[in-house]
């Protein structure tokens, strides 16, 4: 569904990604693991067109999407949940969802009703301003907002960051439900335990390069990976 081939991304003059490649197969949850500053968020932003790569290719559903604008990618079926959430603070929860709504192609789509089924907590705060939400509520709203666009691929950047452990478990259940609903997910995480519980396949990124990749079982069995990167 998504193929990233050797992308090099810069912030101004600083070179952040050095030939990152990864693949996400339809219906799978793939995680991108790495320390703070390893290049996870930049990889996500490069895919979403927010920091277009200088070199390399990105393909989505066999179509070249490198350098396309974010709104075009959203319309093609990529949803993005930024690590800093970026809720529209002036809008209510309901309005945040409303303006993100986009018709589903073919399959039964997400609407307010299904979103509130998945995140019942959001229904109670529907008329509250986005700026007045707790971190956990904002996280849920950011995911819900991305779902309203009926994506086929969801880019989830650090969904568990800063959440209480009970919230992390609740969020994991919700991500599993999304997967059951047929969504493909690329998950960037520092929280290794949580990510490995959810994923089929993993990539480990460090200093802007992919160091290892493999199924979750392979990653967990690899002694060096465990010691150097996973610390589990």
């Amino acid at each position, binding site marked *: 569904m998504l193929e990233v081939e050797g992308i090099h991304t810069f912030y101004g003059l600083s070179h952040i990604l050095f030939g990152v490649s990864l693949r996400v197969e339809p219906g799978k949850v793939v995680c991108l693991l790495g320390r703070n500053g390893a290049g996870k968020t930049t990889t996500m932003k490069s895919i*979403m067109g*927010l920091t277009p790569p200088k070199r390399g290719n990105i393909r989505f559903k066999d179509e070249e999407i490198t350098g396309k*604008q*974010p*709104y075009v990618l*959203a*319309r093609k079926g990529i949803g*993005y949940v*930024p690590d800093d959430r*970026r809720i*529209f*603070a*002036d*809008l209510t929860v309901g*309005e*945040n969802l*409303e*303006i*993100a709504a*986009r018709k589903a192609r073919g399959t039964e789509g997400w609407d307010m009703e299904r979103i509130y089924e998945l995140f019942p907590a959001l229904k109670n705060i529907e008329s509250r301003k986005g700026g007045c939400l707790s971190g956990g509520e904002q996280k849920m709203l950011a995911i819900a*907002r*991305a779902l*309203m*666009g009926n994506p086929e691929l969801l880019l989830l950047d650090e969904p568990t960051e800063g959440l209480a452990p009970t919230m992390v478990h609740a969020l994991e259940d919700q991500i599993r439900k999304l997967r059951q609903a047929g969504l493909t997910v690329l998950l960037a995480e520092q929280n290794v335990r949580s990510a490995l519980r959810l994923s089929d396949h993993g990539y480990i990124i460090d200093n802007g390069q992919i160091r290892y990749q493999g199924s979750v079982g392979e990653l967990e069995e690899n002694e060096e990976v465990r010691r150097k990167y996973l610390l589990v």
Partner: protein
Amino acid sequence: MELGQSIDLASLGSQLLVGLSRAMILFIVCAGLSFVLGVLRVPNVAHGSLYMIGAFSAYSVFALFGTSSTGFWLSLILAPFVVALVSLIAERALFCHLYQREHLMLLLFTFALMLIFGDLVKIIWGAEYRSVLAPSILRGSISIFGSSLPRYNLFLLIVGPLVAIGLWFFTSKTKIGKISRAAAVDREMVGVIGINVSWVFAGAFVLGCFLAGFGGALVAPTVSISLGMDHDIIIEAFLIVTIGGLGNIWGALVGSLIFGLTHSFGVLLWPQFAIVFPYAAVVIVLLLRPRGLLKSVW
């Protein structure tokens, strides 16, 4: 001290009306300026020129219909659309390439545009004074409690709140209005949820300029339409949106009321120095609240 000697209830009433109706014109123009400031982050110095084009266009429509009352009503409707069209062309041809630039560049660019618009108006309409006559139903005065209240000012007092209600409805009830509010805070994220921000900006810009044009058409019967209208209004307009809170259209309303009312009561208190009062009010507001009275989106 002879100050206040001539202040009686009747003149107080009529000055209140004059101040409020002036505030309504200012509000309509400043709401447009503030909307553009909020959503596009462009300090559009040429906003006053669009107001002037609105007034001149109103004159042309009025003259085209043989200076009849139909001409007046049509001028109110058509002149803002002329301005909207001009602004659409300016946005698609020029502004849309410049949003990423720093504010100083935008300030210089819109300043240049103001000079160009000024010359274009001179070429098209000439340097003579023009005027528009309000229809008979809006001419003359009504006498209430001994105050003589001009009908046209009362008309403005109806139009202003209608525009405010319309803007409230647009920004809080329509999807495009909500998208504009979102774009004012985080334009990149608006793109991420699949909205072509470029067209949101074009729409917001055209709406803001439409209001400038509407303000120009509304003011046309009360002033001599002339070159230089643009400079007069733009200075006041920037002060008003600054004291109200940049990008906040309700701030524009509050600022306009302060500006209009302090001026008209200044006329009663100290006629020779009436012009000082609104500026003194601006200074006081900025000393107390440097970021404006209401929440600024900047």
